[in-house]
């Protein structure tokens, strides 16, 4: 394999991995804090990409505005979802709320199918050209995506260190005890929902200039995010970070060698990993009410 090809594959893998990390950390955050498995996470990712298209191409505003718009509006959608539905059904337990997110995601994907139709929306590159070192040439756009993903993860890391982040951790640990300590768990829940959904939304907005926006991207990324959860461990942020990039890189290299069979190979590897380390690389098996 030539050096150029190696770096191409590595950058592609890191770029995809960054997206998996963002979606998976949103998923793992809501799962850890609220004990909700949000199936709509992938759809929010897709909506983020389409919003970027709407703001930056249809309205003609600069890209950073589109990024912010995607983050804010998807976070707002998450909060609405919480106050409209989840808040009133959380008492029913894990399974019912999960089903609600399943059908909410079905509604979103069907509505977007009717609205956007089955066409690919291309968004012009933010930074044209590519970085050339010797014979290796990597487009700036892809590097920007990786950088954005890393910056967002760092911001998330410091957010979790703030007072509200600590309160989130406390609520994740034990909901009732944290309420006794004077933490307003309802507020924690809607903030968690906003952060979790916002992560997906901004993920879609970040990737849009490179990959465009299409309807299948949501379910594709969601499937990989599930793998990331299994590899990294449920409820573990650092696990999601490492596993996200790992899955992205492995997928990218495997595609070069075995083509579209790569997903099967990855799924097999994940199955074997689960056999030896059921909690994932870093996480502990998540305690489930009643287990």
């Amino acid at each position, binding site marked *: 394999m030539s050096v150029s090809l190696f770096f191409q594959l590595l950058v592609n893998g890191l770029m995809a991995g960054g997206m998996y990390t963002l979606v998976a950390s949103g998923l793992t955050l809501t799962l850890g804090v609220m004990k909700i498995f949000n199936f709509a996470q992938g759809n929010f990712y897709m909506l983020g990409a389409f919003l970027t298209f709407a703001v930056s191409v249809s309205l003609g505003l600069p890209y950073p505005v589109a990024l912010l718009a995607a983050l804010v509006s998807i976070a707002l959608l998450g909060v609405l979802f919480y106050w409209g539905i989840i808040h009133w059904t959380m008492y029913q337990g894990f399974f019912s709320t999960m*089903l609600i997110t399943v059908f909410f995601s*079905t509604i979103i994907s069907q509505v977007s199918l009717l609205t956007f139709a089955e066409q690919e929306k291309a968004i012009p590159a933010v930074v044209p050209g590519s970085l050339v070192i010797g014979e290796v040439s990597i487009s700036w756009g892809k590097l920007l995506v990786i950088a954005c993903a890393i910056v967002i993860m760092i911001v998330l890391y410091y957010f979790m260190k703030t007072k509200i982040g600590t309160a989130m951790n406390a609520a994740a640990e034990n909901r009732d005890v944290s309420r006794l300590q004077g933490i307003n768990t309802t507020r924690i829940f809607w903030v968690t929902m906003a952060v979790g959904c916002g992560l997906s939304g901004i993920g879609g907005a970040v990737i849009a200039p490179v990959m465009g926006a299409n309807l299948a991207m949501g379910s594709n990324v969601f499937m990989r995010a599930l793998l990331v959860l299994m590899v990294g461990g449920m409820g573990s942020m650092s696990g999601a970070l490492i596993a996200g990039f790992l899955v992205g890189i492995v997928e990218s290299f495997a595609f070069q060698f075995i083509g579209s069979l790569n997903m099967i190979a990855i799924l097999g590897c994940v199955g074997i990993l689960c056999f030896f380390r059921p909690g994932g690389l870093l996480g502990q098996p998540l305690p489930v009410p009643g287990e």
Partner: protein
Amino acid sequence: MSKLTKITLGIVVILLIIFPLFSNAYTVQVAITTITYSMLGLAFAFSMRVGLPRMDIAAWWGVGGYTTAILMKDGMSFWLTALIGGLIAVIIGAIVFSIAIPRGMMAFFIFCMVLSMAFYQIYGTVKFFGGWSGIVNVPVPTIGAFEFIAKRDIYYMGLFFLVLNGVVYYLLYNSKIGRAWNAIGSGLKLARSLGIDVVKYRMANVLIGNFFIAVAGSYFVGYYRAAFPSIFSFAAGLNVMVYLIVGGFSYSLAGPILGALIATFVPEYLRVKAEYQVIFTSAIVILILMFLPFGVIGWVDQKVRPWLSSQKWYSRATKSA
């Protein structure tokens, strides 16, 4: 079973038998799909009894379907392929679930989702399964010289399978193993403290479910006479839950069947446009989960029945029955 339940059950069975004689081909076709989904729903409710929400229904459904499609093209009898498909699902399931089930509900849940997607990918990419365009022109199921080619005959075959499923599940629920499952479902720690081997009983439950799901897959391919990956996709497996939610989780036998009846025929007769039908169903399901958490049957049981028994004419009528 009380006398009233027996009478109701008898009426329902008679209605199901004479129903295709009075309806057109399209309605019968919808009924065939409903029957398939009822079978899948029964299997799903079956595993909910031991507290395992299984998201891998589509995978095993596909195992049955593809076994039937491949073997029937080689000239094997339909009934034999259904049996073999079931057994293959049990054998693969025994290997796969021996990893997942000891790890608890959450690991099982995610594992099943990944499994479902993996099977979908395998059906699509491996040449043996015919790729994304699938296997078509599967022969017609037969008994002797009789061919199951008319919609009505296929409906009766499905009804046979459905009744078989129902009877087996009913007997299982009321046996010793069924009581152990109930114990596991109502409290894992409690069941363990009673000396029930949770992993073993859960394993038995899931594998029996696998067999019946695969048989449902064989039946569907026998009717559809083609098998391709998109039938057995992860999203198709999620559809099964609609029926269970509409019917009610805690009603393992009546829930999926009644739910399937309501959820297929009500949108059909409200003449909702096809592209809005998914949105309509999903919204209804969310509303049911919010306001009728125990499903339609649960609502009847908890609200309508007490109201009825407070009425004089109802108590008089039930006494004389």
